[in-house]
């Protein structure tokens, strides 16, 4: 079952660490968001392949926006 990784708050996409096609494990950092002067890592909560990565560095995300899909 696919895991949809979504933004949990409004933030800037500071760093994209993973790439589409990567094999990821539970706990791997996918992107690092910046909000209120702090870096907040967005991590995978399952193992699988990163089939979609829908953000780029510099994007602004809102709460609920899709960031990645892991299959």
């Amino acid at each position: 079952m696919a895991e949809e990784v979504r933004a949990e708050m409004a933030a800037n996409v500071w760093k994209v660490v993973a790439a589409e096609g990567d094999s990821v494990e539970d706990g791997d950092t996918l992107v690092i968001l910046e909000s209120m002067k702090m870096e907040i890592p967005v991590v995978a909560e399952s193992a699988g392949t990163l089939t979609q990565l829908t953000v780029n560095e510099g994007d602004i995300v809102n709460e609920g926006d899709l960031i990645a899909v892991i299959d």
Partner: protein
Amino acid sequence: MDKVLVANRGEIAVRLMRGCHDAGLACVAVYADQELEAPHVRFADEAFALGGTQPSDTYLAIGKLIDVARRAGADAVHPGYGFLAENADFAEAVVAARLTWIGPPAKAIRDLGDKTVARRLAAGVGAPLVPGLPEPARDVSEIRSFAADHGFPLLIKAAFGGGGRGMKVVRRPEELDQAFESAVRESTAAFGRGECFVERYLEEARHLETQCLADGTGKVVVLSTRDCSLQRRNQKLVEEAPAPFLTEEQEGRLYEASKAILAEAGYVNAGTCEFLLAPDGTLSFNEVNTRLQVEHPVTELVTGIDLVEQQLRIAAGTAVSFDPDGVSAEGHALELRVYAEDPKRFLPGPGRISVWEPPRGEGIRLDAGYGEGDIVTMHYDPLLAKLCVYGADRAQALDRARAAVRSFRIEGPKNNLPFFVELLDNPEFVAGSYDTGLVNRMRASRKSG
């Protein structure tokens, strides 16, 4: 000294201005456009607009700050913490403008701000240190040979980092290339410098520190230890003074190393030496914070010494107000950093504060940057207030803290008070034997049931 420009905002600006008033000095505030009605602006005797909304145009704009100091007729500048507090260029600009810099000499800021220089200095005075590269790594092969000599886990650290950022733990050789490459990239983006070095990583260590004052005559006094192991995302959430349950031997080593390091650095004024203490007793110097820190109140509470008062005195060339050979810590103090973050995932968010009911009780000190009606914006970090609690011993301090977090009411932005309610009953925390891994363990156990 008659008038001090406080080059900062939020709770620390208010705290510093209180200190100025206590010392009979006038104080000047500066503010970004969106902070026209902020508490630190209301508190000051005079306030000057910096013109702009971003930190680079406001609280980081050296030229504008010096200009305000001149226009206001200020004769001294206090940089607070964060922003330009550890910027040697700012210290030099203040001095060049014939103003008094309330802090250490620019050279000490510059030397100790480079972590590899600080490490070499510490090693040179015989301070305890885990093995590490003495200079930034030129390429990953240097790190690989260090790993061959010293093993894993390793910590790749930004030489010019700070605030818990710019640190990567590497546990396996296969991770080295990627970790080094991204460490350099992230360090350049965050700090403007890509130099990274490597050290042995101490797992489940306690983060300990010493509050020091160098009085300008060459004498360095240690006022108290602090334990700052309770962290999330490598940033402090709770601090205690003194560090609980240290042996006399451990305390002695911390004191001696701190005094030697600061004396060697030609340090003047307030500063903090940070150390890590591993479960097996290994002690390692970490870095020096060349500024007054967020958590300074817990040392004030257990020593009865007002650190800002001493900073002002030392900067003015006056003697400190206490007997440097007679410092003793009595009782116990905790500081809880109340953040505009949710209490489970610690994710920040802004908002207008619709209710702010501070806690009441014995031994409570609240250093707040906001109040009812104020707006927490996206522009700054989410620190709402420092809830400090003093008790005759640690048990009483914990009891008073439990009552305080239950009676403190904040509505509007999310806040982490419920996390502290949970923490203050956590067995490891209550026993005083916790380390920097505790918050992760608390969250992991919550996740699994």
